[in-house]
């Protein structure tokens, strides 16, 4: 039988965007989880949470992908993702997807109950009060929509960021308003998405913070892309990278030969 003080077995759902664009986010997540006392594994049979298919109206494909996730992640105490939208998909939408399939529904609900967004997992489940990291400068935090509205992630990143030595958090206006990503929306309705992203960038600028943080790579890639197109100097990281003290390399969208501005 499991000992009371056995380390929680956490399966990392790395997300398709982190896998392709920014593995350092995955590694930051692993570091944070291990520092918090978890034993981390990365199930090999993971690819995507199925949200692109689900939001495009292709329930059949979404179900196929979801079943794969349910299978791959069944043996772990917790499933943690550095993303509010992927976690939201698993926690909120998998049960909805399988509402008409009682057996899979049971498994989906069971998976949902042990799935968490990374930062809120650290604070709410592992009871982490602070991190041991340093980041000099002012940062502002964008609340990604799924994390905020589907999962209630709001105070948790701010709590941990408050413990980062040297970091000052400057709230921007309308931090809770969408950045304009919305998955395929950014490509299908690119000019509207670009306009919404401009509004977000204007708010980032007005906050006077040198750094922008968020918990979702979709938002981060979108906001970074717009900031760069506008010629802004704001540096952009995934919040996990800052909390894990892994900000020595290039930030998102920066040249990977030398650091920007040097």
């Amino acid at each position, binding site marked *: 039988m499991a000992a009371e003080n056995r380390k929680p077995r956490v399966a990392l759902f*790395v997300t*398709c965007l*982190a*896998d*392709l*664009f*920014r*593995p*350092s986010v995955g*590694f930051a997540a692993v570091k944070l989880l291990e520092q918090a006392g978890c034993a981390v594994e*990365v199930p*090999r*049979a993971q*690819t*995507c949470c199925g949200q*692109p*298919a689900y*939001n*495009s*109206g*292709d*329930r059949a*494909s979404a179900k*196929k*992908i979801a079943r*794969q996730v349910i299978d791959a992640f069944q043996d772990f105490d917790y499933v943690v993702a550095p993303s509010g939208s992927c976690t939201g998909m698993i926690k909120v939408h998998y049960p*909805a997807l399988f509402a008409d399939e009682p057996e899979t529904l049971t498994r989906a609900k069971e998976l949902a109950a042990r799935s968490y967004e990374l930062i809120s997992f650290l604070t709410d489940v592992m009871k982490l009060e602070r991190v041991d990291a340093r980041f000099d400068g002012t940062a502002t935090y964008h609340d990604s*929509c*799924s994390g905020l*509205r*589907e999962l209630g992630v709001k105070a948790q990143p701010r709590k941990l960021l408050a413990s980062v030595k040297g970091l000052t958090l400057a709230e921007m206006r309308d931090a809770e*308003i*969408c950045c304009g990503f*919305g*998955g395929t*929306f*950014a*490509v*299908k*309705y*690119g*000019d*509207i*998405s*670009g*306009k*919404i*992203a401009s*509004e977000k960038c204007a708010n980032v600028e007005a906050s006077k913070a040198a750094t922008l943080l968020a918990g979702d790579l979709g938002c981060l*890639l979108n906001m*970074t*892309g*717009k900031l*760069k*197109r506008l010629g802004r100097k704001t540096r952009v990281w995934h919040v996990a990278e800052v909390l894990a003290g892994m900000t020595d390399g290039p930030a998102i*969208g*920066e*040249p*990977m030969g030398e650091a*920007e501005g040097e």
Partner: protein
Amino acid sequence: MKPTSHAFKENARAALGDVNLQKAMTNLRAGFVERRALMISRLPEWDGLRDEAVAIKRHTLANLDFYLESFERNVIANGGKVHWCRDAAEANATVLAICRDLGAKTVTKGKSMIGEEMAVNEYLELNGMIPVETDLGEYIIQIRHEGPSHIIAPAIHLVKEQIAESFRATHTKLDPKRPLDDARQMCDEARGILRQQFLAADVGITGANFLIAETGSSIIVTNEGNGDLTQTLPRAHIVLASLEKIVPTLEDAATILRLLARSATGQEFSSYTTVSTGPRRPSDIDGPGQYHVVLLDNGRSAMLGTEFEDMLRCIRCAACLNHCPVYEAVGGKSYGWVYPGPMGSVLTPTLVGIEEAGNLPNASTFCGRCESVCPMRIPLPKMMRHWREREFSRHLSPASWRWGLAFWTFFATRPRLYHAASGAAARMLGFFGKRRGRFRSLPLASGWTGSRDMPAPQGRSFHSLWKSRS
């Protein structure tokens, strides 16, 4: 109003470049959004009221036939008439018949979205009547031959210079040299012009925010007082209402009324909330001689028992519009018909068809802000997703997207293949993007790179790095 929703992308593009519109849309935030938040902060019972309102509507819809019949009985008992109309054509014909019966010529109108759905003004004009909009915003768009861009503030897309120009072009009997620089002057001018119309009207048409089964009454909610002058002075009062406006009792209406003005305009209560029951009584010394309720179905009963039933709870407050980043970016006209914003994206396809209106439920990031502010807790993103599901199963989405999705699913359900492909893509894009750290343009992704850069991948996939680590 002929829908142009199929042209949403083109409409939106024009809207994004419309300087006057973009300037006008900035007024939404300080007005409706901030005041709504303030009102809610002053009412601790807010969420409890929302829950009750949802329960009232669910109960009513589950017994819609009973309550409509009760309503009808009470309207008749008070001397009024109920006209059941299946669609806009029947409703328009009914309104015309009532007007002709009275030998009416001029018809004043309070704001009515059902009237817009029916396109009743055009119909009346074609048949020799003169309909005059009396809500200031509706009047402004009527003289500009435009449709409304917001369901509460129809002229929100205009700046005052445009309104002044229209007043000068229409009120030709007034001194051309008169100043029309501010809202006060324009309001006073409209007051004078429309006062004469109120007094001369033969028939007054209003919408209804609620129908009350208990008493056979209709309720309108206005700030200007135009709805009251419209229904009190003429010889007949016609109410245009769709089936789902009904609630059982006055108390039920009060509960939802507590949500309405706060959600719509950030007021505690509107200036005028009026309960009308039947025509004037024999001993009354004013009031209309006739009271007609045009009860319109137009697709409502077909929504019952479907995945779109929750949309029937909508009280047309426009909170969803006011909080939607897409609506704020492109304005109401882009949506191409009567109902814009998130509620329009769900409702319009039910009324004009998904083939015409498919863009609307697709043009959403599913940020969920609409659902979070909806006083009636309507799951708007969920219903937009249902529309996308219907489009997908009917092969209405573009072929290129279907292929892309099939391609993605093929790989996503085969982890080994996926990892190989992702590893290769990370290497290739990382290689090409390493120097600058981002791409200015990417094949197949011009929707993205048209307005922003794409950050480059770091150069190895996570899974390939994790594998080599262990």
